[in-house]
């Protein structure tokens, strides 16, 4: 079995299983943990007030309150930009679609490679810039831990190995098949890490927004 065979077969299957099991484990642990009732009388006692307040925050928290936005403009926009760029590359690169079709049984039209190359380069540029910023910004240095380094690097590696595979580069004289295998393995490493590190916010982020919105509307304040 070649490295590529492994990456396409048992490697992918194993990573997928660890990802799913990890997500189920961590999420059920969080949801089954003790719930505490708020005993205060709600300021907005309507039957759907909490739900609507929660949904409102889920939607509106994507934009920071205008009083505070000036302080975080750069981080706010670059944060969204790289997430969008990463997923557009993943979902719309022509080379990815046969792979997606082989798993889902269907796919969708791809974007032109030229456009995607630009998007990928911008995404990689932003991620590297934000990572360097993390290494030097006093606040980020203080709150950064190993999880941050691992999560950021595992998000960046698939982009770098993907560009190498896409451009048929041969670093250290490696064959194309090996470069492609490393690209797949970098994605699988990300899948394995997904339930364990901060990337897990993909599963909980909207729930935390919802809970905050519901709690604040109960107090009768904006969230």
């Amino acid at each position, binding site marked *: 079995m070649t490295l590529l065979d492994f990456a396409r077969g048992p490697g992918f299957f194993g990573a997928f299983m660890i990802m799913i099991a990890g997500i189920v*484990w*961590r999420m*059920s*642990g*969080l*949801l*089954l*943990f*003790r*719930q*505490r009732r708020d005993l205060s009388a709600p300021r907005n006692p309507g039957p759907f007030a909490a739900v609507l307040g929660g949904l409102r*925050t*889920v939607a509106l*928290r*994507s934009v*920071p*309150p205008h009083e*505070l936005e000036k*302080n*975080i403009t750069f*981080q*706010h926009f670059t*944060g969204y930009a790289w997430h969008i760029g990463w997923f557009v590359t993943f979902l719309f690169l022509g080379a990815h679609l046969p792979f997606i079709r082989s798993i889902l049984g269907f796919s969708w039209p791809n974007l032109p490679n030229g456009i995607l190359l630009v998007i990928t380069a911008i995404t990689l540029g932003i991620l590297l810039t934000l990572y360097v910023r993390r290494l030097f*910004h*006093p*606040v*980020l*240095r*203080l*709150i*950064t*831990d*190993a*999880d*941050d380094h691992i999560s950021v690097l595992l998000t960046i590696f698939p982009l770098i190995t993907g560009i190498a595979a896409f451009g048929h580069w041969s670093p250290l004289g490696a064959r194309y098949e090996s470069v492609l295998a490393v690209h797949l393995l970098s994605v699988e490493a990300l899948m394995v890490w997904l339930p*364990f590190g*901060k990337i*897990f*916010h993909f599963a*909980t*982020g909207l*729930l*935390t*927004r*919802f*809970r*905050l*919105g519901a*709690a*604040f509307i109960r107090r009768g304040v*904006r*969230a």
Partner: protein
Amino acid sequence: MSGDDIPLNETAFSRFEAQVKNLKRAAPPVNLSDAERVQRAKRTMLEKLDSGTAMDLETCVHCGMCAEACHFYESTQDPKYTPIHKAYLLRKVYRRELSPLRFLNKLFLREITAQQLQDWQELVFNSCTECGRCDMMCPMGIHISKAIAITREALGAAGLAPPELRAVEHEQSEAGTLFGIGPQELEAAIAQLRSRGLHIPIDQPKADVMVLTTAIDLVLYKESFAATARAVDSAESTIVTLGSRRWRTGLSRG
């Protein structure tokens, strides 16, 4: 000020000033070992954590945006005032003891220490007003101020609330007074205001809004106390009441 205003009592002011200056020394001693402090803090944290706060602590992506919402960070640019950093000890205890991934986390995270608890006193008591601006800023919608409040409670349980607060708390729980001001002073203040024609009923049943007054208003700024009574009394269909026992007192509107 109109001619009817209650004159300020200079003696009371001097006495109050002396009490405030002495507050730190009036704090009761805490006889807890480092291990006991850590144990008490951890126990409080683990009791207070619930599913919502657990999910909050798991969801932080360490973006640091909350710093930009914090008054203390904004005015000093000192990273230690980053709100989520103030909840660091809570997150650490949670990740080691309660998280679904605690078996893994324990391999990498050390126990919190008494020194860390001591160090966090300044961060959670002196450098947070619980204003909630960080809650408004967080892109994940994490209830950061709640996590800081839990950390405060944990430090309180470990005997690490600031001495001034401990002194006030001690006096309140032991003697039922604040700065030496108790039910008798409350009665005297009410009598004085009633003699000026103000309507101040006490212990009214079924009052559903409590308007609390302060010890300072009762002794130093009686005019402020009178203004509160006038404001609540002038509202339509209002019952004003003051509790007479200890500090379970207030003006109520029903």
